[in-house]
């Protein structure tokens, strides 16, 4: 037991926790983004999908799992970041990237900032949608018309902008995070792993942004 504690609180242990939880969250985001596209292509299918999820009692286990991933990830993230800051108490007068083989990017240096944006965004997002207005579907009063809520929420230009902004931070986080996670788990750095992570991130960003953009500019008509 004490060995488990000393492992999970070691720097490599914490990074392993972040890597596993982070990759699982990215995996969740792939399913989440794909299902969201139903908003555009099949409104009834979207409601049916969300009904299938929330009417299955296993959803509570899944929700608990997602919360555990999220909390485990950011608790480790804060601990790692604090220790890293303490390791360099005095900043350089001039600090430049070394270039050459370095993989440092704006995304990699701002992980704690993009992470903090997620810490604010995710709870608000759940409040807006999961705990947003419950409309009954026209056909069946037991089915939630989540599609209508989505169409309404994204009528506000500010709300749309906030989503596009937050999604960009999320993409920046995963841009570095995906490849970094494999290295934290001990998989040797390979350009193709980094590259696939960045391609996946680009797909996630486009797919997630598509819904607010579609609702606001195409479907909504600014009603």
């Amino acid at each position, binding site marked *: 037991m004490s060995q488990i504690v000393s492992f999970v609180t070691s720097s490599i242990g914490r990074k392993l926790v972040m890597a596993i939880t982070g990759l699982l969250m990215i995996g969740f985001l792939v399913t989440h983004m794909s299902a969201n596209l139903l908003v555009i292509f099949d409104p009834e299918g979207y409601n049916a999908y969300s009904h299938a999820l929330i009417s299955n009692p296993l959803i509570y286990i899944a929700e608990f799992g997602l919360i555990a991933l999220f909390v485990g990830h950011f608790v480790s993230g804060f601990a790692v970041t604090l220790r890293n800051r303490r390791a360099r108490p005095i900043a350089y007068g001039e600090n430049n990237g070394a270039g050459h083989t*370095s993989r440092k990017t704006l995304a990699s240096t701002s992980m704690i900032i993009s992470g903090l944006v997620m810490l604010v965004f995710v709870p608000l997002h759940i409040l807006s949608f999961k705990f947003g207005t419950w409309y009954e579907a026209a056909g069946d009063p037991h089915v939630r018309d989540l599609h209508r809520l989505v169409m309404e929420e994204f009528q506000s230009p500010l709300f749309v902008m906030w989503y596009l902004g937050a999604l960009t931070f999320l993409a920046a986080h995963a841009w570095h995070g995906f490849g970094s996670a494999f290295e*934290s788990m001990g998989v040797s*750095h390979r350009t193709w792993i980094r590259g696939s992570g960045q391609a996946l991130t680009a797909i996630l960003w486009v797919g997630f942004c598509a819904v607010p953009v579609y609702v606001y500019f195409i479907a909504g008509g600014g009603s």
Partner: protein
Amino acid sequence: MSENQSYTIRVWRQDDAQAAGKFVDYDVKDVSPDASFLEMLDLVNEDLTRDGGEPIAFDYDCREGICGSCGCVIDGVAHGPLPGTTTCQLYMRNFPPGATITVEPWRASAFPVIKDLVVDRSSMDRIIMAGGYISVSAGSAPDANNIPVPKPEADLAFEAAECIGCGACVAACKNASASLFTGAKIEHLARLPQGQAERARRAQRMVETAEAEGFGACSNEGECEAVCPKEIPTRVIQRMNRDYIRAYLKMI
């Protein structure tokens, strides 16, 4: 033959670990393009000494890129702008004539400043002392190829063994992490038969000593590899992570 040039250097001056340091500007004239960066500092110090000032303290020994004593952050990059070089092997022809060059020490809480550009790197020695050796006495050097090691493995061991312990990886890392150094010191033994018996324990002890010394964690940015004068790849960090994780898995 290009002509001698003048430079302005902004150097970090600090009396000791407790003192607050500051940047001070010095003009240096008539610098040969073939002078090394340290020879340029020698010129500044000659002027300073002549004028009764305190010379800039900086570390060096071999001045041929093999001992790992020298090193400062030059224009925001550890060991300066050229990849794969130590500060002593950096030549003034690499700087545009008349340039203002910023020079500061490695900055890390595990590397307290002794004076000016000299930092105390004994924290890295303590990482080695925690397990970076084979603990049985193996006698004098055996005949070559007494223990057969496949050539590719020997090359990988050697690549890691090239580490000269200069500390540039720590200086370049935004987290002041010693992962590249520690990884290299683990890897050169982990690749060889002699290193196997103590492999798990070694990774565990060295990593935990690095932490206790106050070095940060790895964020996988690879700035360390890019400034390393020996261009040691971050692969050694990923292998260290694996050995460390495995050491704990073995205990379960």
